[in-house]
């Protein structure tokens, strides 16, 4: 009987080990497979040339990733521009201002934003947000900024609502809950004595937040922001609806564009030549590499933040 126990225990142990090995192998396999699949394109276009070449022409069999990479980076920057201040504001509100009784329900509402699937963000962006952007927000921004010489280039063109700005805005709403919840957790980790001793010296609430709580939480906050960046970089559906899949680089924020993920979503099943497919895999590999790198850095920072508090 006890032998049976030993056997079953070994069996269970083996299964659990296998499961964790499978998990790691998947990640390694993704890297290897995508790299192999993009070898063709890497040989053809090299690394720097592919990253900086703007031409994406299936007819002429010339592929450069610059337009997709530009769109990816720009939408992410716009998203962060909106999301970081909003999320910090939410975290400040939840931890410092909100009455205790409303705190739970409020945090939960913000977290609900994170549970809404990206396809819904896309639908909403296309049919609800884009018309508002086209008819009201973007014309208003143009009236405001076109007269200013330096900012003129950012707001040129016909407002269509299908553009970098709308995409960035949708992305920002998607990442707000992540940054806000990490910020909230980090704010709450700040020891009470720290903020109380600042209050005792006559600091205002805002000064306590700015001079004690924020500096104390900065490592964890940075980690959270980078995780959100990683998510924004690779988001597909929410952006695919409202960006327009246009392979040319415009400085203006109200022009359509594309991201790596959107290019993949739109062209992968239509790619008709080996080189075309390989170039798409190349883009996928770049996206994988970027996100993995960013998320590893974030992981490291978050761990460091926790350790310091712990």
């Amino acid at each position, binding site marked *: 009987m006890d032998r049976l126990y030993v056997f079953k225990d070994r069996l269970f*142990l083996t299964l659990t*080990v296998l499961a964790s090995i*499978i998990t790691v192998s998947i*990640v390694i396999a*993704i890297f290897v497979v995508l790299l192999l699949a993009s070898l063709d394109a890497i040989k053809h276009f090299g690394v720097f040339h592919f990253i900086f070449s703007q031409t994406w022409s299936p007819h002429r069999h010339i592929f450069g990733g610059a337009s997709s990479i530009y769109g990816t980076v720009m939408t992410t920057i716009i998203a962060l521009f909106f999301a970081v201040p909003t999320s910090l504001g939410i975290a400040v509100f939840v931890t410092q201002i909100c009455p205790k009784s409303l705190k739970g329900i409020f945090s939960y509402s913000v977290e609900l934003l994170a*549970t809404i699937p990206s396809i819904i963000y896309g639908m909403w962006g296309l049919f609800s947000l884009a018309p508002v952007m086209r008819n009201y927000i973007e014309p208003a921004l143009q009236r405001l900024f076109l007269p200013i010489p330096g900012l003129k280039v950012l707001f040129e063109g016909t407002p269509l609502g299908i553009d970098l700005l709308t995409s960035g805005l949708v992305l920002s709403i998607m990442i707000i809950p992540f940054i*806000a919840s990490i910020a909230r957790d980090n704010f709450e980790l700040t020891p009470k004595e720290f903020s109380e001793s600042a209050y005792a010296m006559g600091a205002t609430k805002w000064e306590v937040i700015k001079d004690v709580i924020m500096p104390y939480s900065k490592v964890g906050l940075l980690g959270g922001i980078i*995780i959100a960046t990683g998510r924004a970089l690779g988001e597909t559906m929410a952006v695919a609806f409202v960006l327009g899949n246009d392979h040319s680089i415009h400085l203006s924020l109200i022009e359509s564009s594309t991201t790596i993920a959107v290019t993949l979503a739109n062209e992968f099943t239509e790619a008709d030549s080996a080189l075309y497919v390989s170039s798409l895999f190349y883009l996928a590999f770049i996206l994988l590499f970027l996100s993995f790198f960013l*998320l590893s850095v974030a992981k490291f920072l978050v761990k460091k933040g926790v350790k310091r508090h712990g």
Partner: protein
Amino acid sequence: MDRVRKRKLINKIALGLSVFAAFLGLFWLVFIIVSVLSKGFSAINWSLFFKDPAPPGFSGGGLRSAFVGQGIITIVASLIGIPIGIMGGTFLAEYGRNFKFSRLVSDIADIMVSLPSIVVGTFVYSIMVRPMGHFSGYAGAFALAIIMIPTILRTTEEMLNLVPWELREAAFALGAPYYKVIKDVVYRSAAAGLFTGVLLGVARVATETAPLLFTSFNNPFFTVNPNQSMPSLTVTIYQYAMGPYEEWHRLAWAASFVIVVTVLLLSIAGRFIINRRFSKR
């Protein structure tokens, strides 16, 4: 203006801005939910669930095939993803808790949770769709399983870590082998947490679109055979929303309505389970 008054003013402005930010967050939530509910509700009818899509441009069809396809893909994905996720998490929290390897797996799984899902789609395309020569529900399910595994693995690990060590020791002291300790004591103690983790993991992939685009692809016809390309609700929404027909948009909204309502209910249910868990003892 004297210094103190200036400081007080800055304080008021800053706090006012954060209240504004908070309500901006709420505003988006309400805006999105109200849009989907109002536009989707009018499009809901019985034929949505019981009829297959009408040919492009014709009205009166439903999305039965997409509901069924989505269900099959999600179930197959769960059959692969849940056991691997729970087993892997069990290794990290139990047998392997002292090994460096476990920390590595845990960190990698954490990173995997946030990797772009479309990249997983391209991966599965090249290891399954290309060799097999056709899109298939199995490929879609496999892609979703890959996304599900790290989420469930990490929640399992965390939930098992919450079970006090003394409880395991008490079972060991009675002469239980480790697998029985895990099965009878640890899993049972963490049951509510594990269930919530699985629920969230499944809910997350059940609404994924990007990894399905070039794995299960789409199919205008009803099918229950996962070895063929399979329609899914999410891919159908994408196709219909980007399409030119008013009728398609209506169906896309109806499908979005169903998804949002389901997700909200699941998330509230999950919340409820967790709350009950922590209020007890």
